[in-house]
């Protein structure tokens, strides 16, 4: 493999795995925030206890996933400079700004507030504590926005001009309102909510299958998960289709590959415009990914809608096969998300910044051996983390609310006093 292939493999593997954590994090955090808010505003002590347990149970699964998501995200921030220094040479004036703003405006706050939320149980006032998780949710989506602005520039560069081989920002507003960023953000937000909703509904259904005693907790979770995933999965398909005209306008080659018509003519036209080269992405990969995403999107939308109807008179919990279908649905939104990522990112090859800079030209001057070692190390670590993440999530999901560690204070032995504060 060449250095370019290794760098691409490294980027694709790390981003692809990171993306699977992101989609669940973004899907779970608003639902956890809703649960926490409901718990905080419930007066009846018994009900409140149930809702608080519910928040802590799902919150812990979210926090486990976030832990792995954040460490894989740390690597992403460095990848551009490590492997693609040509990107900062050409587009640094434009592309760097949204990344800088993402870290300063969104990520900084998200991580700090989540740390406070995790350790704030019984220590912070209830209103403050609930506000924190909403701030985490808000900043998670703000983070997504800035990342999509950066990615949107790579998909469809706007608001810039090229002088002496480098891009200069001319219209910040155009960069922020890039249709390639906004429609896609809307699409992934809905995909995330679908993923989170299906995740919660599926695990709740599993607990009913195992004859849980926490019926109130899991009924509430099931209802919330199904409502959110039904609505989100209905719109995710529609918003996904709304991207088609954007792609047709901005990335004619991706459109031609998806439609499977006119690829050869476009290749000839692009050669005339940009010089000799292969401007066709991996056609089969892109088309299959698109089909997988579409089929899963429609199927999940149907399943969640039927399940929502079956909630009436608890039929869903009594009909075991229906519950099993919900459990089996959990992985599919992840597969669809991976498919969507392939369509977007593989579909724009060979461009790094569409029409301006190819992936090949942006490669850092790093030796093949160094790329080979780092690629192997990162892939091994990321796969190990993914396996660990899913093993832990499965374990804590199966053990149920009783085993939740988040927010659980240990009993204080008799006669032992809390040490005095240091300052």
């Amino acid at each position, binding site marked *: 493999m060449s250095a370019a292939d290794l760098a691409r493999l490294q980027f694709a593997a790390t981003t692809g795995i990171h993306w699977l954590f992101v989609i669940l994090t973004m899907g779970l955090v608003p639902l956890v925030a809703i649960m926490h808010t409901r718990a905080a505003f419930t007066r009846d002590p018994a009900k409140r206890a149930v809702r608080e347990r519910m928040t802590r149970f799902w919150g812990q699964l979210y926090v486990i996933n976030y832990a792995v998501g954040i460490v894989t995200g740390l690597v992403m921030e460095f990848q551009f400079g490590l492997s693609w220094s040509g990107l900062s040479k050409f587009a640094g004036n434009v592309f760097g700004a949204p990344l*800088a703003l993402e*870290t300063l405006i969104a990520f900084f706050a998200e991580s700090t507030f989540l740390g406070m939320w995790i350790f704030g149980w019984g220590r912070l006032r209830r209103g403050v504590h609930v506000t924190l998780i909403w701030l985490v949710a808000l900043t998670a989506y703000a983070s997504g926005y800035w990342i999509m602005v950066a990615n949107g520039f790579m998909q469809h560069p706007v608001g810039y001009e090229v002088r002496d081989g480098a891009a200069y920002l001319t219209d910040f507003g155009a960069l922020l309102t890039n249709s390639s960023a906004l429609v896609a953000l809307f699409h992934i937000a809905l995909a995330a909510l679908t993923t989170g909703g299906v995740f919660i509904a599926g695990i709740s259904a599993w607990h009913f299958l195992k004859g849980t005693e926490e019926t109130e907790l899991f009924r509430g979770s099931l209802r919330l998960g199904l409502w959110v995933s039904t609505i989100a999965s209905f719109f995710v398909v529609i918003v996904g289709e709304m991207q088609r005209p954007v792609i047709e306008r901005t990335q004619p080659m991706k459109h031609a590959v998806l439609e499977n018509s006119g690829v050869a003519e476009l290749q000839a036209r692009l050669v005339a415009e940009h010089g000799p080269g292969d401007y066709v992405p991996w056609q089969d990969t892109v088309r299959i990914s698109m089909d997988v995403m579409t089929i899963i999107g429609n199927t999940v939308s149907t399943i969640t809608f039927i399940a929502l109807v079956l909630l009436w008179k608890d039929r869903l919990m009594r009909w075991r096969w229906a519950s099993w279908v919900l459990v089996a649905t959990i992985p599919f939104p992840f597969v669809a998300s991976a498919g969507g990522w392939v369509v977007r990112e593989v579909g724009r090859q060979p461009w790094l910044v569409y029409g301006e800079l190819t992936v090949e030209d942006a490669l850092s001057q790093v030796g093949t051996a160094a790329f080979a070692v780092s690629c192997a190390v990162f892939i091994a670590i990321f796969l190990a983390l993914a396996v660990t993440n899913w093993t*832990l999530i499965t374990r804590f999901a199966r053990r149920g609310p009783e085993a939740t*560690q988040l927010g659980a204070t240990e009993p204080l032995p008799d006669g032992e006093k809390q040490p005095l504060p240091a300052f």
Partner: protein
Amino acid sequence: MSLETLWLALLGLLLAGYFVLGGYDYGVQMLHPYLGDDRETRPDRNAALDAIAPFFLGNEVWLVAFTGVLFGAFPHLEGTLLSGLYPLIVAILVGLVLGNAAVQLRGRSRTAGGRRWWDALIVVGGALPALCWGLIVGLLLHGVPRRPDGSFHIGFDAVSSPFVLACGVSTALLFAAHGAGFVALRSTPELAEKARHVALSLLTGVAAVGSLALLLTLFGAGASMTNRATSAVVAALFVAALAGAWWSFSRGHRIRAFAATCCATALPVLLVGAGHYPYVLTSSAGTGLTIDDAVTDDATLKILSVFGVLVVPVILAYQSWSWWAFRGRTGRRHPSYF
């Protein structure tokens, strides 16, 4: 002061913030099997890790913000620097990924065997980034082998020079001492006493290895600074901070001692920045990439500044709030999650 100098100062503030906050995390990570282990009464907990827990997530973001600002405000430095330091950056990232995941997931394991694995990763995840950041500081102080096109690539010989190695080892020891100082500040009195003694021995180590780096510089085999006088002042401040920390630890002034180690961990960043200004990256030959070459276009910088003026004070405010909210010593009443 010009706009780009302000952004360089902000970049320095973020990196210094990361050295101070991430530094004590790494120190505690390195020392936790020795400092916080309590096999008899609470085998599943670690008191040293409990001390850093509420701040852990908020500390690491300083590094991410540093990288983001590096890319946003100094894109021409970012591409050169990160790809040039490729092996070291990869090593830091590997350490960060393993260490961060281990700190957050250690509490999820059920068995003592599982915890031992996480513990080992926590130590590696503290020691590896600490050492590599020290090596990078050493390389930047000494100057990197830039090619005519401005790019450079770090090989084994550059990293294994005595000066760079001395910087690496002394930084790792300094972070460890700083971490011990943090445990001394936040843990129960018995543990705090133990941590104080550890910090004293570690500071002696920093002084010994640091003196070696200083001697090498005086004999021309170490740092080659652009601004000699400024560098001498910053280096003197660094020595004073170390001495202050040692004195405070030996007298039992834990807050003063921690303040001093905070200064000592932040000052190397100032040394690199102010010592080489207006260069942001120097060659071994003495010239280099200036701030004007590295900075982003004026239009972009102005937009970033509008956001920066609003956002940076907010960041400092909520970070301070989080420190305030979780002040005080750790104890059993504290929710322990990590």
